């Protein structure tokens, strides 16, 4: 099942209608930013020119002309240095701030046109959000925190407590229901944050650097549990991080942001193997490529050379593993899917050059 959720180009074509689509989104800060933006836009030029003009006039174009689509069930990671506008982008999509210009739709609904009441309804039932510093309510116990979205939705106490019990179990907090946030460790707090965001049975899940405030060990553990939860629920996820390793580990696709701009969108392998510029390359530099790029990304499907079938590779193998398997071969090696059907071939030379590429 996990492999079926194609990590790769297949995904885009698979989606009929994107779960989230963002087009031409601008978020400009400053007094009366909307008219300043309109003026700058009327003066023409590329989005870079417009942003430059706004900056000259003392405005902060925190998000510049963001465009992307997230397919249903996809895990879309937004990555960039701190201050690059990731949070602002996400807060625009969830309308925690009012975007200056652009278009956002979630599951076909125009979010920026939704009324206040409609937004409240959407947040209760369709959108969940997790915060970097947890954002737990200090005066509520774990179970009250988790059940809060149901409470504001008008559900009775008994019913909502019953309902969140399984979510609390899922995030591993069984037995801690009565504890207060101040009595929990960082990892446990974020589990509460995750559970609360899931209480409303959301279909769109936003996470803003959920693990950045945690110790590396706890972080890894939570990442794994996050992937487990994700496999169980069929939510569309936008996940923000500044950590390339986390992005590569989790993402179906990654969008890289710099100074408010999305500079590249691609699969983890794309990002590692084909960075569009030095900024992205710099990110990918510290990454052990072999561990993140998959065989599928360098496979040639239309290859008709005779392939060595003996070891047999699979498309979701990492390059590192693939290299170990076909170390001794000089000719292309066959790639099979789970059912044993031949998908294509991989040239060991390609593996080596992919691993070496841009190392200098």
């Amino acid at each position, binding site marked *: 099942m996990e492999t079926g959720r194609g990590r790769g180009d297949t995904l885009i074509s698979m989606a009929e209608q994107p779960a989230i689509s963002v087009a031409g989104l601008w978020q400009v800060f400053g007094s009366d930013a909307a008219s300043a933006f309109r003026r700058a836009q009327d003066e023409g030029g590329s989005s870079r020119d417009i942003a430059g003009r706004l900056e000259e006039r003392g405005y902060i174009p925190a998000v510049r002309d963001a465009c992307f689509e997230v397919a249903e069930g996809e895990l879309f990671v937004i990555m960039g240095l701190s201050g690059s506008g990731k949070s602002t982008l996400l807060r625009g999509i969830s309308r925690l701030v009012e975007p200056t210009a652009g278009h956002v739709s979630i599951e076909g609904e125009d979010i920026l046109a939704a009324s206040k009441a409609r937004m409240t309804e959407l*947040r209760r039932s369709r959108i969940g959000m997790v915060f970097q510093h*947890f*954002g737990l*309510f200090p*005066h509520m116990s774990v179970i009250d925190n988790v059940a809060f979205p149901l409470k*504001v*939705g008008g559900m009775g106490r008994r019913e909502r407590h019953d309902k969140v019990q399984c979510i609390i179990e899922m995030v591993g907090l069984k037995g801690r229901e009565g504890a207060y946030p101040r009595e929990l460790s960082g990892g446990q707090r974020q589990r509460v*944050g995750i559970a609360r965001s899931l209480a409303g049975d959301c279909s769109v899940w936003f996470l803003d650097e959920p693990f950045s405030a945690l110790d590396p060990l706890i972080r890894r553990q939570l990442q794994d549990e996050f992937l487990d939860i994700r496999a169980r629920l069929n939510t569309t996820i936008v996940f923000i991080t500044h950590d390339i390793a986390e992005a590569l580990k989790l993402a179906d696709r990654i969008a890289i942001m710099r100074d408010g701009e999305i500079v590249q969108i691609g699969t983890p392998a794309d990002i590692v193997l084909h960075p569009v510029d030095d900024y992205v390359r710099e990110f990918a530099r510290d990454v052990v490529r072999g561990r993140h790029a998959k065989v599928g990304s360098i496979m040639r499907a239309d290859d008709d050379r005779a392939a060595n079938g003996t070891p047999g590779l699979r498309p979701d193998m990492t390059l590192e593993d693939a290299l170990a398997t076909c170390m001794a071969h000089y000719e292309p090696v066959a790639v099979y899917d789970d059912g044993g059907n031949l998908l294509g071939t991989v040239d060991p030379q390609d593996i080596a050059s992919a691993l070496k590429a841009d190392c200098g």
Partner: protein
Amino acid sequence: MSASSESPAASMPGPPRGQLAALLTLVTGAACLLLQDYAPWMVRFPEAWTLPATELVGTGLDAVLSAIKPVMRAWSWLLSYPMSWANAVLVGSPWPLIIGAFTAAGWYIGGFRMASLTFLGFGFVLLSGYWSESMNTLSLVSVSVPLAVLAGGSLGILANEVPRIRAALLATLDAMQTIPTFAYLTPLLLLFGFGPVVGLVASAIYAAPPMARNVILGLERVDPEVKEASIMSGASRWQQLFLVEIPAASQQIMVGVNQCLMASLSMVIIAAVIGGFNDIGWEVLLTMRKAQFGQAFLAGLVIVIFAIVIDRLSGSLALERKRHDRRVTWGLLLSGAVGAALLALTGADTAPEGVFSAAAVAVDDSLGAFTATHGATLDGIKTSAMFYGLLPLRIGLDQAVLPFTWGFQWTPAMSLWLFAIAVLAGLGLAAAGRHMAGAGLVIAVGVVETGIAELPWPFVIVGTMSLAWVAQGTRLAVLSAALLGLVLISGLWDRALLSLYLSGAAVVACVVVGGAIGLLSAVSGIAWIIIRPVCDMLQTIPLFVFLIPTLMFFQIGEFSAFLAICAYAVVPMIRYTRHGLVSTPPEMLEAATSSGATPWQTMTDVRMPYAAPTILLGLNQTILYAFAMLVIAALIGTTGLGQSIYLALGQADVGLGVSAGAAMAILAFVADRLAQGFAEERRKALGL
């Protein structure tokens, strides 16, 4: 970024502006001195030029007040219900039940410590013989605090919800806190008529601002992620506010409730001056008037203990999360009830006669004996302080130096010599590069020679403008000049200068004494261990009580008032000085030490400059405290605006009361902005 128009002080280099301002002040002063014989209007503002402000304000307000009077009387009628209920509960319940209930609350909130504090405190009140008076006071507080909490809380929430009115509201709160307490009483008296409701409403008005402030602060400080989490959970604005933000801010809000309680208690006691209710404040006033200082002292002590118990109780409600065993709470409550039942059975259900009244009489007697034997010494202290300190400050050396006190008569020639020496010394300082010190010296000499109450008005206004200009900029300069001008043409100028003189003298004394004590506390931990609880207590005591001890020893008069003001206003100076000095970053101290600085050099060259902004804020607080106390001190003899406000209360003269109150508020406001401006300027200069 429009900072430049707000604070040009920051954008322009400091010295030239300061020097220019000092020069301007000096020139104005000199011109006034030189021209005083040719143009007497330059010294004393001619009466013909003033407007009958008090009458105008009086007729205007009278019209407004009588228009809204029916509504207010209805309010008064409404309020009398909860008041009589609270009174019936507190005065009507047998004392063991009340002590039991409060002790139980003390236990529940703060465990054994709070329970024993409450028990001992209330026990003392019982034994003092002022039980029913204290319960009367408590019933006023118990009605006024919910009112103030409700009003202040709603204002705070309103300011949070409607950001546009926030600035205006904060300014109003500022004003409400600078308007002297007695000044509200006069209009309220006209509106509500004699009786406890005036005290109730006055204390609710007085206690609402701290509540509002803390609500605003608390809501503002709620973690933004917590706010966003509640939005993203789908809470409506109403739900966000009441289910998340207010509970999350509860600690700060409880601090507000604590301040609200203390303010209310203080005001309820002050409101006793209008009489009509047999509460503990009235008792103090009555015994003071009858010169029964032992009794007054005892009643004052009851107030102090009351204040401490209420403060600590509500304070720990704000700070401690832990609640204690409920069974003990119920047990304490039950034992109170049993005690009450027993008392009822034995038929002695009234509070006992004071067991301390004998002690009070003894205190009276020994005080009498003390003043009889040491009267000469006390008088000596008082007269020397008056003749060599206060009087010259007030009317200047030229009039205060008389043969029978100083041993010689001041002559114009002496003035000339004094000025000549001062100018020479000032020039010397200026030549040595210390321009500001030089100008300051000449100005100070000029003030002492003339006397604050006799300063020419152009000098005061130009001087204040210059200070404001240096401290913050043109805007504050214009504003202060306009406000002072208002006082000038209202005909209250002379009284304002008298107030300025007494509070100025007290502030100077507080700066010297408080600064020294603060310094001592900063360098010696042991000193601070002793001084700190004294400061805590001085800040808990309602203003009114400060009058008792000074009156006991120095009788009615300006000196007693001066001492009472100092005792109250010195605390912030001590606290802020110490705090500023001990909060120097350790690495700065280490750097100084490793550069070979002696401890004293470290103190003067590193810690003091670093502490300057904090100390200036302390000065600011001290000034405000001094103004607040000045009006209360009118009860025991001050001149100036405080006296006018107090007299207006006695004569129910709204015009005088309100305009003198406004003049006082103007002085406090200008002084406050000046001190804050300087503190801000220092902080910027240090890059904090």
